[in-house]
């Protein structure tokens, strides 16, 4: 029997999507367990640990991103149908939507505009490049939509994906403290602010605090995705960035 040629096996593996796909799911599963073991702390968010682990793996094995993405794209593709699927939780909140449409609409228009413009302007004042500013603009929107917007306005979708996750973590960690500083007691208002500023990661945190806050956060997240997609090109145009 001849020795199995490990190098030949590696050449085979690195040429099929199998490795990238398996590594993605494995990294996420492990990251999710770690997150649960750590009491669902936002700093242990599975995206952070899974992305970190995968990058280390790719760097050590000297695998280019493009090769990894041959497999990763199958997971990545599901972002599209997942965005469409946000219609269902939105529909489940239809009663709240009808009852509170006016305060919600004002909060959304103000929150979405301030969210995008403040990020762009702060980054600009601090000397960030134009492409970074554009990648920052949709940072408060749920990742699949943010990446779509980023691509459309000339940002870097992969950079946006990371900025979105970091934004969500900041919101999830600091939201509770900010609301008690502002002396807000209404869970509906807290939820809407969380969903507009910190999308799905904030929503997950809101559900830990109260079911009502979670429901409103989910509602605000879905609505702000739509409002941001509509408003952002115009807002950036006003700034002369597009």
């Amino acid at each position, binding site marked *: 029997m001849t020795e199995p040629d490990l190098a030949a096996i590696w050449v085979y593996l690195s040429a099929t999507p199998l490795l990238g796909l398996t590594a993605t799911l494995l990294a996420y599963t492990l990251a*999710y367990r770690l997150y649960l073991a750590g009491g669902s702390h936002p700093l242990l968010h599975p995206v952070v640990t899974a992305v970190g682990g995968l990058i280390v793996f790719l760097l050590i094995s000297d695998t280019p991103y493009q090769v990894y*993405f041959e497999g990763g794209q199958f*997971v990545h593709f599901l972002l*599209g149908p997942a965005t469409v699927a946000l219609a*269902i939780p939105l529909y489940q909140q239809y009663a709240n939507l009808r009852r509170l449409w006016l305060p919600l609409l004002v909060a959304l228009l103000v929150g979405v505009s301030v969210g995008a413009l*403040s990020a762009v302007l702060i980054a600009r004042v601090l000397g960030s490049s134009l492409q970074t500013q554009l990648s920052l603009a949709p940072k408060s929107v749920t*990742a699949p939509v943010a990446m779509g917007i980023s691509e459309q306005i000339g940002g870097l979708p*992969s950079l946006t994906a990371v900025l979105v996750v970091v934004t969500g973590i900041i919101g999830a960690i600091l939201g509770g403290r*900010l609301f008690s500083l502002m002396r807000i007691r209404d869970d509906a208002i807290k939820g809407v602010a969380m969903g507009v500023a910190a999308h799905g990661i904030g929503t997950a945190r809101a559900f830990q605090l109260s079911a009502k806050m979670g429901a409103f956060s989910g509602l605000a997240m879905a609505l702000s995705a739509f409002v941001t997609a509509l408003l952002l090109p115009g807002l950036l145009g006003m700034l002369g960035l597009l």
Partner: protein
Amino acid sequence: MTFLNGLTLLLIYQLVGEVSVRLLQIPVPGPVLGMLMLFLTLVLRGRSSDSLDTASSGLLSHLSLLFVPAGVGMMVHFERIAGEWLSIGIALLLSTLITMAVTAGSMMVVQRVLAKGADADDRA
């Protein structure tokens, strides 16, 4: 079959959304338009369906998994992030706090104004 039916429906709405934004040249990602059209369909129909509920909870329960491949793409931008991490970090931190405060504040103000209006109506 329920999951497959639901997923097929989601893909059809995405497909129609993608084609529509291109035909009508709307500056909105195709899946976002698909989401709006599906929402309007549900509102008109008055209820959701088992297959849609199954497919959407299946996809959304681990939404985070779906942006891992894109997040790994950060490795391509190491130089940019290394050079700009401080300004990016400050922008994210301040902007997120400002967004939350302003959103909550504006919603509070509108609710108060509406409540006062309702009081005035009651008295009239």
